[in-house]
């Protein structure tokens, strides 16, 4: 039994089905979809409050997504820990600066990779809040609920992602 948990990878169908069961449990026990992007708003709000509390009080968005330690915030430290446990017990944890697919085309300079990742992260944070959710909140949990908005959003995530990845790797990197 324990050997199964120390395997480096599971079938994506098994891992995916597990995520499906987990999503149902989250609706049952916590009355909410598993989403990841609002945690970053909360964390950003808490940092802002620590630096300039008066200014943060004027920001309307933080009255809707309240910067506090709650379910939606804890999901992110949880994911870091869960992925670390999974990687560590299977011996696949390792410090990595530049992923190989990136490095083989654009080189292994960590500064270039971090700069591009930072740009992507900013767009991702901005876009996920603009769309009201991420690959998990809309893509998995909105689709589970048959939400029209979520299914359309998930299609746009991939439309934008595929177009940009093809531009990066097949045009600029070609």
């Amino acid at each position, binding site marked *: 039994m324990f050997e199964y948990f120390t395997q480096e990878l599971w079938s994506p169908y098994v891992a995916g089905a597990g995520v499906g069961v987990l999503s149902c449990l989250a609706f049952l026990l916590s009355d909410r979809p598993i989403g990841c992007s609002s945690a970053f708003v909360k964390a950003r709000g808490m940092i802002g409050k620590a630096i300039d509390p008066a200014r943060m009080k004027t920001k309307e968005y933080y009255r809707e997504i309240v910067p506090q330690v709650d379910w939606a915030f804890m999901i992110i430290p949880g994911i870091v820990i869960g992925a670390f446990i999974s990687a560590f017990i299977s011996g696949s944890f390792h410090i990595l600066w530049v992923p190989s*697919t990136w490095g083989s085309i654009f080189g292994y300079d960590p500064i270039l990779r971090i700069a591009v990742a930072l740009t992507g992260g900013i767009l991702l944070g901005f876009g996920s809040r603009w*769309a009201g959710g991420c690959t998990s909140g809309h893509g*998995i949990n909105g*689709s589970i*609920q048959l939400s029209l908005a979520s299914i359309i959003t998930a299609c746009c995530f991939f439309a934008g992602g595929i177009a940009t*990845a093809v531009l990066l790797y097949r045009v600029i990197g070609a």
Partner: protein
Amino acid sequence: MLVRLHKNKNAQIVLGLLFGIAFGFLLQKGGVTDYNVIIGQLLLTDFTVLKVMLSAVIVGMIGFHLLKYFGHVQSHAAEGSIGSNVIGGLIFGVGFAFLGYCPGTVAGAVGTGALDALLGGMVGLLIGAGFFAEVYPQLKNRILVWGKFPAVTVPEFLKLNLWIVIILMEMVMIGFLVVLEHFGL
């Protein structure tokens, strides 16, 4: 519904952490905390991401609607719009390809030791979320509500029975995965 548990703030903080741990574990085991796997999906050379997502939706859709039928869960589906979901989704997509992780898998990648996910991804997400909070009052009653969708759920939109839509969507998703395997993708 388990209303008392839902309202217990401390229990929910613990549950959020536990759900995160289980979710992160499954994402890592499924292979989707790896940049190479996610970018492979966006280049249409590796379909692991879609396999994980569709398996989750196939299982979750039946489970959620059975739980809802018996009164144990409620729907959180909200009204959407072109201005919010389509434009926001496309901005997200551009960021998704530059970063090579999404907001959940970026945290998972940090757990596996990926420093581009930590120093680029997580920091960028904090900056991007903060920037959205700055411009939110200007967007709120304008572009975010532009082009509202005519329905909240797919069955309402198609004017079909819920269970018929579920069966059809399950067949389409399972069929898609069978086709992927058939072509060895």
